[in-house]
């Protein structure tokens, strides 16, 4: 850090800077974490009771977790979220990886424009996308079906895969393709034996992003999902609108743990990618 600060730099300014950053990072992380202890509240309140602060065992309980696991609402929702998320991820990972391979080739015509179009689902406001899809699938007679939701989530997830795999490929040496060809490998073999193993971490990273995007998505589900497609975010949305019971906080805790696991996986993949690339 001393590198950025001049020798004549005032100590005060440095401390102010570090203090400010600490405050911002606290602002980012603390709200996420505050949910976790509150989900063990024995009372149906969303704030710390006196008993909780005095660490009385009676004030803490697992009752909301029992509700979540016992009541027949969240587990079916988890099943639906998983079905949609996994199917959408398979579609978006397959298509996104192929497209990244094509777009990485220096010979690809119209590269910038195509890339911009392929990434547009990620940066278009979701409310517009969801409205358009709602018209589209209801005209097709696919409104309120799993098919519609899986296709919708796949197209929303594909840009993540495209970007992650492209990043992996940016360090790829295209001379390897030529070398493989010289050794008699056809295009398919080169792809399978040379390119894919090298970009595998990027593919998995993209897939995790795509899955996470689907697993967290609620606006499209609200607009084109029917009564059969009540996913976890859909149930949470309904729960928050009605009233926040600590049951929601218990579900939120599960989702936070899940997010941390995903983040750890992506981090691990990135390091592998880095090791391989160097």
């Amino acid at each position, binding site marked *: *850090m001393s590198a*950025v600060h*001049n020798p004549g*730099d005032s100590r005060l300014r440095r401390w102010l800077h570090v203090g400010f950053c600490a405050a*911002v*990072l606290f*602002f*980012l992380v603390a*709200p*996420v974490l*505050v949910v976790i202890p*509150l989900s063990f509240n024995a009372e149906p309140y*969303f*704030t710390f009771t006196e008993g909780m602060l005095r660490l009385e065992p009676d004030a803490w309980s697992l009752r909301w977790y029992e509700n979540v696991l016992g009541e027949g609402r969240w587990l079916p929702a988890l099943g639906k979220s998983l079905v949609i998320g996994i199917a959408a991820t398979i579609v978006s990972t397959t298509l*996104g990886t*192929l*497209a990244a391979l*094509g*777009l990485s*080739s220096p*010979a*690809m*015509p119209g*590269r910038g424009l*195509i890339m911009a*179009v*392929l*990434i547009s689902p990620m*940066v*278009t*406001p979701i*409310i517009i996308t969801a*409205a*358009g*899809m*709602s*018209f*589209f699938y209801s*005209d097709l007679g696919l409104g309120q079906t799993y098919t519609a939701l899986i296709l919708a989530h*796949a*197209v929303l997830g*594909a840009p993540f895969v*495209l*970007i*992650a795999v*492209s990043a992996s490929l940016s360090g790829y040496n295209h001379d390897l393709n030529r070398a493989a*060809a*010289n050794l008699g490998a056809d*295009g398919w073999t080169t792809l399978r034996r040379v390119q894919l193993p090298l970009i595998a971490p990027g593919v998995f*990273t993209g897939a995790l*992003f795509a899955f996470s995007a689907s697993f*967290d998505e*609620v*606006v499209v589900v609200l607009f084109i999902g029917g009564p059969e497609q009540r996913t976890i*975010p859909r149930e949470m*949305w309904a729960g*928050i609108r009605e009233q926040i019971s600590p049951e929601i906080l218990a579900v*939120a805790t599960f*989702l936070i743990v899940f997010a*941390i696991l995903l983040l750890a996986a992506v981090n691990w993949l990135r390091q592998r990618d880095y090791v391989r690339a160097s």
Partner: protein
Amino acid sequence: MALSLTDKRLRAALLAAPLVVFVAVTFLAPLALMLVRSVYEPAVADSIPATLNALAEWDGRELPDEEAFRIAGMEFVALNAERRLGSVATRVNRLQSGMRSTMLGTARALGNDPPAGSWRDAMIAADEDWAEVSTWLAIGRAGERITPRHYLNALDLDRGAVGEIVAQPEDRRIYVSLLVRTFGISAAITLISLMLAYPVAWLLAHAPPSRAGVLLLLVLVPFWTSLLVRTTSWIVLLQNQGVINDLLVVIGILAEEQRLAMIYNMTGTIIAMVHVLLPFMILPLYSIMRTIPPRHMQAAASLGASFWQSFRRVYWPQSLPGVAAGSLLVFIMSIGFYITPALVGGRTGQLISSMIAYHMEQSLNWGLAAALGAILLLLVVLLYLIYNRLVGIDRMRLG
């Protein structure tokens, strides 16, 4: 043997083709359909062709003639018997309140008791609105297949008696001010995010790699956490009986009845959205700042420049691409945000997205929802082009 250039091109294009087709069909086509829906509404025209045909010759000043009354009356009765008049009447009612019961009530009365003599007298007897020219004008306009009315509605405009464009009465002007508010809130969120993110990105970019890695994780944890979870957290923290108010009361800063209203208003929307969007500002800034050699600042300092001088002259210009990228990204995401404002926005913190959702889900006025969406889309595409020009969309990275 190396492939020829054409073969390579073909191979690259074939690899990209499936996703291009997929995006075209499942993303671009729905957006195109939305644009079509915003100007094309055939439902009324398809349902009452004879009435509209009879009105086509009509001058729109005096009441239509007996023949037009008879054709319209008979068509309404026939449609009502098939239970198809309701959706027509709902659409006409959007142009003129009260038309729903006028049409349905008249069709019911005439269906039970078909007029022996003049249809005109019978219809006016059933509902005196039929003696108003505006009633027939509304039916004629609802019957336009291709219509600008959803865009007019979305811009708080209407058409007057002879088709001229007039402003809506003041107590019905809602969308323009909501759009303005959406832009204001989005700009505020972008600015606040930038001010919070810049020092943090700086710290991350120039810290030793091991420490930067840990700090980056702190940015990424909320980034990966479900949006609904983060919104829930803010409700828990900010509400009247929430953690922050409780804390302020317990330590005596606030009295019990002075609890702050920090949520279900514009403040709530801004706080929660800054939290959600801050990583999208930090990450682009960080990736640009990493490429700025610290030596530049040191060189400026050794030439006698003060910290602020060297920052302004040397560092800030080099970080501008990151500032532009982050700001545009956050701004684009803000103007279309739905979930968080809907849950924590209350009365004053709603954005234009809430009206799109309302017309999609509640009023079922899909044409108007499409027009609002199209206006928003136009603005986003403009910003997107600027972004592409400034940063290059293909340089986008994931955290």
